């Protein structure tokens, strides 16, 4: 390569980086606003290790192996051990790592906001989620009604709540039970249902079939569904939450099932997270939520690609 073309590439790389400036400023202010929200509400900000020996065994989530351990796919297990030890309100903003996840809304290394609250359930988290996003908008001086990809996104409270059953009845060509039986739940959700969710009002899609919630508590009223929700804004999946499962035997059985599926499909089988299981009986009834910070920045900065809201993508390194 001639020196000229190397200079040319360097120029393009620097131009791409500097063109991200407004988004990176928004991103930094957004993260500060999130911290402000939680510290005002008396949440403790925690940091848990990225390098862990035993990630939560979930069939569809692959951890990156590093040395003798793994990079965490979320801080869930460590944060729940803190809950069990008597920290009732905790939050964390951290990098998480998931092998092979790369697309317009996916990075293999991404930023997650995760928070847990004792003596709360997933309904309480829906309220808090609305409150947090509205607070952040105000701190950033953004209006509550935004134009996102030529559509109106109205973030004024209250937001909408649909069950998975209702959403499938309204938008899907296949009934929910049939989609699950055929292994087509995810595909039907992504292709037929998701594009309708979150315009103009955000939607909490809730009460997932119990088979689709490895760490969630089943509903008291209907054991066929789990107390889990996903939050959608403008067709974008932004957060996942549940009322936490606190029964260690049930949790171990579900982990074993996920491990068996991983093994059957030739995926890495992780060690059982024994210390987490040991702590679980001491965890109070609580609810937890993980929210994709990069995606929230995407929505608020009108970016279609996640690449535009981080300083570097893996390909740019």
């Amino acid at each position: 390569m001639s020196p000229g073309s190397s200079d040319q590439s360097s120029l393009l790389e620097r131009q791409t980086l500097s063109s991200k400036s407004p988004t990176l400023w928004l991103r930094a202010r957004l993260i500060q606003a999130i911290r402000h929200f939680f510290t005002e509400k008396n949440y403790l900000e925690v940091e848990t290790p990225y390098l862990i020996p035993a990630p939560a065994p979930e069939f569809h989530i692959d951890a990156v192996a590093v040395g003798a351990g793994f990079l965490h796919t979320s801080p869930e297990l460590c944060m729940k051990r803190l809950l069990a030890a008597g920290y009732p309100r905790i939050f964390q903003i951290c990098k998480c790592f998931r092998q092979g996840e790369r697309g317009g809304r996916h990075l293999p290394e991404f930023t997650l906001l995760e928070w847990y609250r004792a003596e709360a359930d997933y309904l309480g988290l829906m309220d808090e989620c609305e409150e947090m996003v509205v607070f952040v908008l105000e701190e950033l001086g953004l209006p509550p009604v935004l134009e996102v990809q030529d559509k109106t996104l109205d973030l004024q409270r209250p937001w909408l709540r649909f069950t998975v059953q209702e959403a499938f009845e309204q938008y899907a060509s296949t009934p929910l039970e049939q989609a699950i039986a055929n292994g087509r739940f995810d595909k039907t959700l992504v292709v037929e249902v998701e594009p309708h969710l979150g315009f103009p009002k955000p939607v909490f899609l809730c009460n997932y079939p119990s088979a689709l919630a490895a760490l969630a508590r089943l509903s008291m009223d209907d054991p066929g569904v789990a107390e889990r929700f996903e939050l959608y804004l403008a067709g974008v999946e932004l957060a996942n939450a549940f009322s936490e499962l606190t029964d260690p035997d049930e949790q171990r059985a579900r982990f074993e099932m996920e491990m068996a599926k991983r093994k059957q499909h030739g995926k890495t089988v992780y060690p059982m997270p024994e210390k987490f299981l040991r702590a679980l009986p001491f965890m109070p009834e609580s609810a937890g939520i993980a929210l994709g910070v990069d995606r929230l920045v995407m929505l608020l900065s009108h970016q279609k690609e996640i690449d535009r809201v981080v300083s570097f993508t893996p390909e740019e390194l």
Partner: protein
Amino acid sequence: MYNASNLRKGLKILLDKEPYVVVDFQFTKPGKGQALYRCKLRNMINGIMIDRTYRSVDSFESANLEQRKMQYLYNQEGHFYFMDQETYDQSALSVEQVGDAKNFLIDNLEVDVLLFDGIPIGLTLPNFVDLLVTHADPWAKGDSVAGDSKPVTLETGYTLRVPPFIEEGIKITVDTRTGEYVTRVK
């Protein structure tokens, strides 16, 4: 055989017994769910675009495609005829299959013809083709409405804009990908 994780732009696969090329490709994954690959595919025979979403467990046959060097012979009654450089067999493509390439097809031009299961379905031109200017209006000084270019017609009937010094009877090089003038042939 391919599986869904092999999908990427440009990959050619067989669907319902017809060859398709992946023209757009997006990885996605619902929370806690399985990886999905959303694709836009173009049917390589009729050009029709379709959307398909695949799961990581899905797999595909590869399409039996072959490119052969052929020489353009002539066109007759809506078909363009080519001769295989090795076997001397003749193949025909329809006007629709040839598409805009007809603007650059001159006798004896060597092209790549794409065969699917041995049947011709399309062609790829060389990036640059030299063509004769068969009609050009003389450049009128002061006629600067159209800036510093003027329209000319080539031996294939194709018209394009060229610099004012290009005259009838001159050969020019055209970029077949953009259809634009590149240079005058010396």
